[in-house]
């Protein structure tokens, strides 16, 4: 893509995110969200393929509707309470509408239908931005209004997200769609603890962002888009694929790896808040997503694919491995022993 155009889009994304995060008036928050939506559309439809256009259309329609709902909820709150402060969103109807709007922005069930299709139609790096950076502004809005949101609605959204993110990811063979469903189930975990300890939501989000960035960058290096290509990607960069195995297991939340930290803390907090059945339910539902993470890990490293003699094994990658992957992999796999320190930071 034209470097100047790319610069404008990336700068707009950063601008929109910063505006939303640092705002205390609802209109500024909405402005940041809209700037983000508009800036990422050219990045999604970069290749002008009909599928990319389809992804951009779906993304734009849902995000625009969600932004309008955000504005609507803030307007009804301003009408009832007379002020536009983000942290003072007190009117119950406004809170409900805001929760639905942010659920649409993030991709929480039942507003998740756009997410797999949009990720599938966009290139891997844009998918990375969609999964991590575009989730930060709505997450901060949820964080700022967390004290006044409806716990029942959030718990229902969270459990449904964990369930559907697990179930619908089971039958997928396209890796971008699998990562979309993993994102949806992680968002469920983030949403369930929002009322009780919002800092854990942010911790979960940061660790999820690091792990997902690692996965996306690794897949981008080995140019893998579907499960059958993943089976033979080990020939390109064997050590990278081994680290991908560990990162995927970390995303699944298995104990000695970093991904276990947010799940452990969330379950602990939920139990302290007398929500043990919810904690049990969401843990059991994340077993479903564990299945497809294991399947991905299996295809990455544990199995040698069946190949006939005329199948050419690819032996080189187009570009050298990104240095960032090394750092991010280390962070996403080895950070569990440092959990007391992380708790003090977040």
């Amino acid at each position: 893509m034209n470097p100047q155009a790319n610069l404008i889009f990336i700068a707009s994304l950063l601008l929109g995110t910063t505006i939303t995060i640092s705002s205390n008036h609802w209109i500024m928050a909405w402005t940041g969200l809209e700037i983000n939506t508009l800036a990422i559309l050219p990045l999604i439809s970069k290749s002008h393929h009909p599928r990319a256009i389809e992804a951009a259309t779906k993304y734009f329609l849902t995000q625009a509707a969600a932004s309008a709902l955000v504005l609507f909820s803030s307007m009804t709150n301003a009408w009832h309470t007379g002020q536009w402060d983000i942290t003072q969103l007190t009117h119950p109807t406004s809170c409900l509408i805001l929760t639905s709007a942010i659920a649409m922005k993030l991709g929480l069930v039942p507003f998740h239908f756009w997410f797999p299709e949009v990720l599938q139609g966009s290139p891997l790096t844009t998918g990375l931005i969609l999964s991590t950076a575009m989730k930060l502004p709505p997450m901060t809005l949820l964080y700022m209004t967390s004290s006044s949101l409806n716990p029942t609605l959030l718990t229902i959204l969270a459990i449904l997200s964990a369930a559907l993110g697990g179930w619908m990811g089971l039958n997928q063979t396209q890796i971008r769609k699998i990562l979309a469903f993993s994102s949806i189930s992680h968002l469920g975990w983030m949403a369930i603890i929002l009322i009780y300890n919002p800092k854990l939501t942010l911790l979960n989000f940061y660790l999820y962002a690091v792990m997902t960035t690692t996965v996306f960058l690794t897949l981008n290096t080995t140019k893998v888009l579907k499960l059958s290509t993943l089976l033979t990607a080990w020939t390109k960069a064997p050590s990278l694929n081994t680290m991908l195995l560990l990162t995927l297991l970390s995303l699944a939340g298995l104990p000695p790896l970093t991904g276990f930290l947010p799940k452990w803390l969330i379950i602990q907090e939920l139990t302290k808040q007398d929500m043990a059945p919810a904690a049990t339910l969401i843990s059991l539902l994340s077993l479903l997503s564990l299945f497809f993470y294991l399947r991905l890990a299996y295809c990455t490293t544990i199995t040698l694919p069946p190949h006939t003699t005329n199948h050419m094994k690819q032996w080189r990658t187009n570009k050298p491995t990104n240095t960032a992957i090394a750092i991010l992999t280390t962070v996403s796999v080895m950070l569990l022993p440092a959990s007391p320190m992380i708790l003090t930071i977040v």
Partner: protein
Amino acid sequence: MALAVMLLNGASFRSGCCRHKVLLSSLGPLLSNSKLYSSYRRPGAEPEKKLSWQNVDFSFKKSIDHLKTQLSLLKKETQDYLKGPGGNPLSQHLLEQTRVLWQFRSQEDLNKWVISSDVEIGGKSKVYIKLGRNNQAALLYGTLNTEVPRDGETKYSGYCSMRSRPEVGSFNRKKYYDWSNFNSLYLRVRGDGRPWMVNIYTDPYFSHQKDDLYSYFMFTRGGPYWEEITIPFSKFFLSSRGRVQDNQHPVWLDKASFLTLGFTIGDKVDGPFQLEIDFIGLLNDRAHKEKFAYEAYDKNTPV
């Protein structure tokens, strides 16, 4: 209610016999079904059709049967979803190298295809389809006639085609295929030496490009022996309304929203043609490494 029915009956009766009277000209569009503009009907087009709602049979029993069929289709789809991607176990998805999409063994296989020719623009080609010998193949045959219809605006004529009907699932929802495991189309045909064009038409719902078509050529031999033709998907080029586009892109196979696959003959030669098709399938040709055959250079290089 009876009064309303009487009024309606009276209105239609009046419109039937007094259509040209000036008195009713103001009520014309409401009562009669004449169009508000003059329409030109092409010579080969069918005469004024019945309005679509007049075709529907509003019987209750038929709707219950229809609902039962759709619910059983939905049940079958749910069971397929539980088995794995595409209704088959994952191991089959990962291991398969060939898949048969359409084969012609019975009349209902033939019903999945639609034949058309330039009769729809007023030409004189004829095309027919029937099952071949021993119900082992489909025979598409006919006569191509390049005589141009005399309507003052058509310049070329003479084409015949056979296109597949788009597959629908339960409740008439579109079915999307996952053909990402494969990279070629595999056809077992016996032609008569004439060149055919294979066209793939994808779902224009989101892109609104209703005239986009991915095409490639199929050259048949004509001998008494069956031919197995492999056409890689990387060779299909994009054309819109018949004009090859500058901006080419390969066909994406993962959510193959292919609505129709079609065979067209239009090689400007008058005369009879015949094509026997045994089956149409997909192949994962591991020796074919090409990603896309056209526009392989880097566009928009930074200056």
